[in-house]
């Protein structure tokens, strides 16, 4: 075998493997759309997306996923609200303030949180947080928006924290030195130079954290309560899209309308996470081109 032939072979093998993953992704998406689209023969896209009644097993059934979309968005939004300060501030602490010894403990601990199986977090939410919420606020159930948002926030924190930390770490040393040389204190340097310079990376981190939260299934299945109705308070139960799909897929007859409706819900979810990822990508590229941009 000549050396050149070997090189060509190796290149082709790598290319093939790269193709395999793209091909599989393509097949999954095709399958998702093929199984989801037939529901639109029974309901219009508008009624499907904005219909406020989700009674897939009634006669006649109602396939409006608006309550599920609202449920997904509200737990995502609330969990982001909780996770962003936690994630970003811990990233700032780890990258700029913490002495090395603390940094070496804190960083792996936060990363370990990312490896925590979501079902374990679900357990925690069900067995510890739910009864506490129920007793403290005198609620009919502790499985509600607040509980789900807190658990999702815990899942999003490691994502936000580690990506933000990378962004902060990559702020050029020259900027920090320039700031100190002009008589800035450490906190002034962090607030006025380091964080603004890392803002595109931090935004990316936040959006990816949100994408993580909106697509998360097990936690919301276990602790969101599962009521497919538009919530009236933060202590109401909701049924976010992934929870709905996971809970109902087992009982939906193959290729029934219910089955197609669940796949169509999957399409909506897929498009949402795709949008989140595209936005994250756009933000991180946009600021890169002009050298961090003007802040």
């Amino acid at each position, binding site marked *: 075998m000549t050396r050149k032939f070997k090189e060509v072979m190796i290149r082709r093998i790598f290319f093939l493997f790269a193709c395999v993953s793209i091909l599989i992704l393509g097949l999954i998406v095709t399958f998702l759309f093929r199984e989801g689209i037939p529901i639109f023969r029974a309901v219009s896209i508008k009624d499907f997306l904005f219909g406020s009644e989700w009674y897939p097993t009634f006669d006649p059934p109602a396939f409006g996923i608006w309550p599920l979309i609202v449920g997904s968005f509200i737990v995502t939004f609330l969990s982001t609200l909780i996770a962003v300060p936690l994630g970003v501030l811990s990233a700032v602490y780890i990258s700029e303030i913490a002495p090395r010894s603390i940094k070496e403990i804190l960083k792996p601990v936060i990363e370990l949180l990312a490896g925590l199986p979501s079902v374990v977090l679900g357990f925690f939410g069900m067995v510890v947080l739910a009864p506490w919420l129920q007793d403290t606020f005198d609620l009919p159930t502790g499985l509600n928006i607040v509980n789900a948002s807190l658990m999702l926030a815990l899942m999003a924190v490691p994502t936000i924290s580690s990506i933000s930390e990378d962004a902060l770490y990559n702020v050029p040393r020259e900027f920090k*030195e320039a*700031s100190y040389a*002009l*008589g800035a204190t450490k906190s002034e340097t962090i607030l006025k130079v380091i964080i603004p310079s890392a803002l595109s990376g931090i935004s990316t981190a936040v959006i990816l954290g949100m994408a993580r939260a909106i697509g998360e299934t097990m936690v919301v299945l276990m602790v969101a309560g599962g009521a497919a109705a538009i919530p009236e308070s933060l202590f109401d139960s909701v049924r976010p899209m992934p929870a709905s799909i996971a809970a109902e897929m087992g009982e939906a007859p193959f290729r029934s309308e219910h089955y197609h409706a669940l796949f169509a819900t999957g399409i909506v979810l897929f498009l949402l996470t795709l949008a989140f990822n595209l936005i994250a990508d756009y933000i991180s590229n946009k600021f890169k081109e*002009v*050298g961090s941009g*003007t802040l």
Partner: protein
Amino acid sequence: MVTVEDTRVIYVKNVNFYYGGFRALTDITMDFEQNRVTALIGPSGCGKSTLLRLLNRMNDLIDGTRVEGEVIFEGNNIYDAKVDPVDIRRRIGMVFQKPNPFPKSIYNNITYGPRLAGLNNRIDLEALVERSLRQAVLWDEVKDILNQSAMMLSGGQQQRLCIARALAMKPDVLLMDEPTSALDPISTAKIEELIQDLKKLYTIIIVTHNMQQAARISDMTGFFYIGKLIEFNATEKIFTKPDHKQTEDYITGRFG
């Protein structure tokens, strides 16, 4: 009795400096006089940049460093425990090797330091921006684009912006760490010309790798080698008749 006026703005007395266990500077004693340009030259790793960064306590930012001896600025040792490095850095400005404007507008680059120091009046700030940019001979080039990103300027313009930014603090001393090493010859000439103008108002200490540059712009030159100050003399003397053989060898390009 005649009292000799002390023209030393800042001086270094018996300074040793350590990075962890490594001694980077050995027993340095040097005076820097008012309205003079002092050049620090020597081969890479000789400690000249370390000395420069010692003068505004920038080395504090590196973990595990230690200073022995005294750096006297206006009669006080800046390494005294009760001295806040922030105050020192406001009085002793610094320009770095690589132009390092903030990714902010030109205007905000200049006003960054003064604002932190408590200057908030818009009219004063605008006057200060114009004055600093004029001093750095950049005003005519940027007066219409003050709100655009400093990142859009050329390297030479960025470096003059950094000088203007340092001048906006109205420092007493200006430290320059190889300010032209990343620039083209035309930008370098502009900055050298600028240094000549600035020495009327400021005391300038400049580290340079470029011997011609030291000869052109400085009044005094210190030659460093492996952490020691080998020779410190008037620039003219250093470049024509140095006292030490090592200095001569370095200047004539026999090593370094």
